[in-house]
């Protein structure tokens, strides 16, 4: 069971990173300057602005990603077993059922492209 190894290396990496960060924070010299701690905006004073407008495209991308990601995940068990299915004579059946699925997938993708959900400007 690789779980132990995974846990071990995760914890190790986290501890390692923390130690390094701690070390770096102790070793560096500090000079206090209030301007330095201001948010960096290309040198001009920070403009405090409520409601930063962020394009809705980002969620659209993320939402579409979720949906299509799952569709792709669905292909994985199919891909592993496809050979076995062919050898047991059910290849065409499984192939056709997957093609139906992919057809629906492509239709969805096509719709998104057509409805300009994937256009960035």
């Amino acid at each position, binding site marked *: 069971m690789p779980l132990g190894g995974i846990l071990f290396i995760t914890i190790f*990496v986290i501890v390692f990173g923390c130690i390094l960060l701690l070390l770096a924070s102790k070793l560096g010299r500090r000079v206090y300057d209030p301007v330095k701690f201001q948010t960096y905006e290309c040198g001009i004073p920070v403009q405090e602005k409520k409601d930063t407008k962020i394009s809705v495209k980002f969620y659209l991308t993320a939402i579409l990603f979720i949906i299509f990601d799952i569709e792709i995940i669905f292909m994985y068990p199919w891909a592993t077993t496809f050979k076995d299915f062919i050898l047991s004579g059910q290849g065409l059946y499984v192939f056709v059922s997957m093609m139906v699925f992919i057809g629906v997938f492509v239709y969805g993708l096509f719709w998104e492209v057509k409805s300009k959900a994937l256009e960035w400007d």
Partner: protein
Amino acid sequence: MGTDVFQIAVNCIKLVIVFLLMVQAVPLLVWLERRGSAFIQNRFGPNRVGPLGLLQLLADAVKFLFKEEFVPANAVKFLYYAAPVAALVPATLAFAAIPLSTPVSVDAFEMFGQTWGPYTFLWQGYEINVGIVYVLGVSSLAAYSILMAGWGSGNKFSLMGALRASSQIISYELALGLSIVGVIMMYGTFNLTEMIAQQQGTLSFQFLGHTITSSWLPNWGIFYQPLGALIFFAATFAESNRLPFDLAEGEAELVAGFHVEYGGFKMLLFFIGEYGHMLVASALMATFFFGGWGIPFVGVAEVQAWAATVVGAGTSASLLTGLVHFMVFTLKLAIFLWIFIHVRWTLPRFRYDQLMELGWKTMLPWALFNTVLTSIIFLIAHS
């Protein structure tokens, strides 16, 4: 993880070594990148510190360590610190699952008045039988560190950079995931070790009941899945935020992306993460399409026989075999890493809309096409 203390200890040490391997690769790659870019651009690059400037990396590391610690005023402190550490984890976890060489078998031996062994140690962090899914799953966690860094910095620019970077990563993850469906279908397994084992020997495949063999081509995945390999490799560029897809860093628009507010050692950790992704990508490339640790035209048994003549049979021969294969794997890795670097200094950057267009409207459909094509050929070939 093992049945007794020795095995557990060795496995733990192995994991640490894998991690350190990744960490030490970063300065090397940075050096390579700087010298390489200088070579491409007809400059010298760092050449003062040490022979060929090799000690420059050490100097850089020390400089990083002694940088001033600094937290922006608007930052969310916990996330600001957690992000660089979190950047390390996914790459490490993924890299540890990739088989780097042949397993090493250790004969029974005496130690501390006790008989230990015999053991078989894998030349990898751990073996996972759903390797591909695991690697994909773990590397999809990379988006968190980016988002944490971007939001934790309390800076509009870094938030924007983080969103763009993560959007880009997830967009290309689709093409990436889809491009390997053909690979999975071909090998019929998720297990990376089995994939490598299936790529040994010379090219031979079944077609309509005939077995077709080649006398000189190695049995590598690239010959079965050229389109898949291309899409996969291109997508990994985007996954690891490298040029020509390093929009997150687009200096002109977003100053420097999600790590604007980072400096010193924290920046270095992000670097390690990014180069770690490159390493994982190259290793996966080698594993899926170029026979992993396999040496073309030479079987594992031949190498073992040769090693037995050099150091005598047993543990040491097995170790030597592993080392040889590891070297081959490293060589393959180096080639891909060099391609990464070469591309970075050759191609210009995409615009963001072009990037998204390429991911969704070009690579995703082509990957889908590759999947369908592979399955059709498969269906014809095997029935």
